[in-house]
């Protein structure tokens, strides 16, 4: 039996807007096993990013239970969550979010600064991660000297440099041209297939979702059962 990496039960997230409370995610229960590559799809406002953020512990749920990598995220303090995220989660943003003042190497090295690694070890790891994404020749380039596809590859290197168990990607191909998007998806597949990383990816794009081993749909804050799609979902 596969090891459960992510398990949520009746996970709910509500936001307060003036006197109203808006439910972005309603009673979502999902189980993702080690080595799964799951795509979360759905229309805008369906709650897919909210679910991803809750899995990454970037936000706290209003109700329900969530265990990721055996950790009850609701019981952890902010500091403990930050340390847990650094050790176990790699996050890839749609808009890359590299620090503009740092080179590719320094950007990738950032998460390692939170570890006890020596400088030489950090540099070696970051260099290796960049070589893995095909940017071994661009170590000293700053983000503005890179194309969008290259920036996203640096972001992937940054996400994997700590060798996390879980990679979470929020629309990783959303800002890329078709060729760059294909490269990024190939990398994610490689990380999943060859390195056994568990990946959860939010995407709008059905072609991107095809890279995943399974797809789960959300609609109006509700996680639909496996195999079910939103009404009028023509993708």
């Amino acid at each position, binding site marked *: 039996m596969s090891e459960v990496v992510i398990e949520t039960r009746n996970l709910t997230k509500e936001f307060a807007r003036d006197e109203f409370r808006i439910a972005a995610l309603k009673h979502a229960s999902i189980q993702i096993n080690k080595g799964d590559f799951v795509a979360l799809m759905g229309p805008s406002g369906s709650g897919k990013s909210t679910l991803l*953020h809750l899995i*990454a512990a*970037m*936000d706290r749920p209003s109700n329900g239970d969530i265990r990721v990598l055996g950790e009850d995220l609701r019981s952890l303090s*902010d*500091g403990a969550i*930050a*340390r847990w*995220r*650094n*050790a176990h989660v790699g*996050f890839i*943003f749609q808009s890359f*979010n590299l*620090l*503009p*003042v*740092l080179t590719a190497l*320094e950007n990738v090295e*950032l*998460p390692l*600064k*939170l570890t006890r690694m020596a*400088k030489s070890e950090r540099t070696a790891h970051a260099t290796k991660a960049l070589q893995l994404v095909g940017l071994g020749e661009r170590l000293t380039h700053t983000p503005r000297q890179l194309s969008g596809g290259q920036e996203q590859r640096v972001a992937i290197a*940054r996400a994997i440099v700590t060798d996390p168990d879980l990679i979470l990607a929020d629309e990783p191909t959303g800002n890329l041209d078709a060729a760059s998007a294909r490269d990024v998806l190939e990398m994610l597949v490689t990380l999943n297939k060859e390195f056994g990383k568990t990946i959860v990816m939010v995407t709008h794009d059905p072609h991107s979702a095809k890279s995943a081993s399974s797809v789960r749909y959300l609609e109006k804050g509700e996680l639909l059962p496996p195999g079910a799609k939103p009404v009028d979902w023509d993708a």
Partner: protein
Amino acid sequence: MIRYLPLVVKNAIRNRRRTALTLVSVATSLCLLGTLMALYRSFFYSETPEYQAHRLIVRNKVSLANPLRLSYLPLIRKVAGVQEATIYQFFAGSYKDDTPSESFARFAVESERLFRIFPEFRLSEEEKYAFLHERTAAIVGIKTARSLNMKLGDRVTLRGDIFPVNVDLIIRGIFQAGTADDESMYFHYDYLNESLRAGERDTVGAFIVRMDGPESANAVIKGIDDQFRNAPLQTKTETEKAFQLSFLAMLGNVKAFLLSICAAVTFTILLVTGNTMAMAVRERTREVGVLKTLGFTPGIILGLLVGEALVLSLTGGLLGMGLAALACAVLRSGPSFGADLSQLAVAPSVIAIGLGISLMIGFISSLIPAFTASRRPILESLRVNN
């Protein structure tokens, strides 16, 4: 925290124009602050130099404008602890057009005793001899001699104002003391006294005393003042430094004045730096969210942002202290306008206070924006579009 230093420095200089302007404003303010603190220290807390520590000034208890009698001098010399005493008569008057650049202190003294009381005066034996043996001779400090182009043998006329006589003098010596006296001129009291009408003679503005040691000061002061306690003209004896400070006090409460300017400068630079840091933090809100996503704790982020402000303010402070040292050097070599600035310098204690204030400015100015940014939820930070 050292491992984050490159990141802190890179962030501190990411907006070069703003960083440069901030550094200039901090450095300028700290230069002013450092110079004012050096002045304050020089006036009120500097160590009394050896040569000055041996000297006392005796003047009329009522005010400096009221003279004493010449007949007091032998009695002062008899007080225990007094090694030497002489007349110290400020002449005032005017020289040439009496412009500020032509202004210098002039004193009538007993020439033969002058060098025993002021052993720091250095001039050649020939010049000293010429001064001592010529009734109209004068010696002038090297700074004044240079600025007014006075040479040995030059004739100088001082027009009297307090004293209704003009004195015609010949420069016979140019001395170097390394103190504010380098801007002074000394000539014979006898010449001045004899130039006066009979009823105006034999009065003295002040006497200057050399004691056997600084430790005798209290006893000698008491001894002299007690000597004239029941005399018609009572005396006030004080150290040379206190005497100089009494001139400064004529300008008003100089201490409060200097301190209030220091406080105003500190407060202003706090506002400027605070505004800069608020802007710097605000424009990086999204990056703070990214760092948190990577696992940076609120504490580390707070440290990074405050550290950035400290790097800026400390660099500005170091520049400012360097500029203050230059300013002190310029003030030391320029005209003293009566205040003894010979010891004016940015002392290590002033540097420490200046850098401490710089760090405090950096810390206070960044604390609130940095704290707010470090505590902002990740998603809220990531939603901000910088």
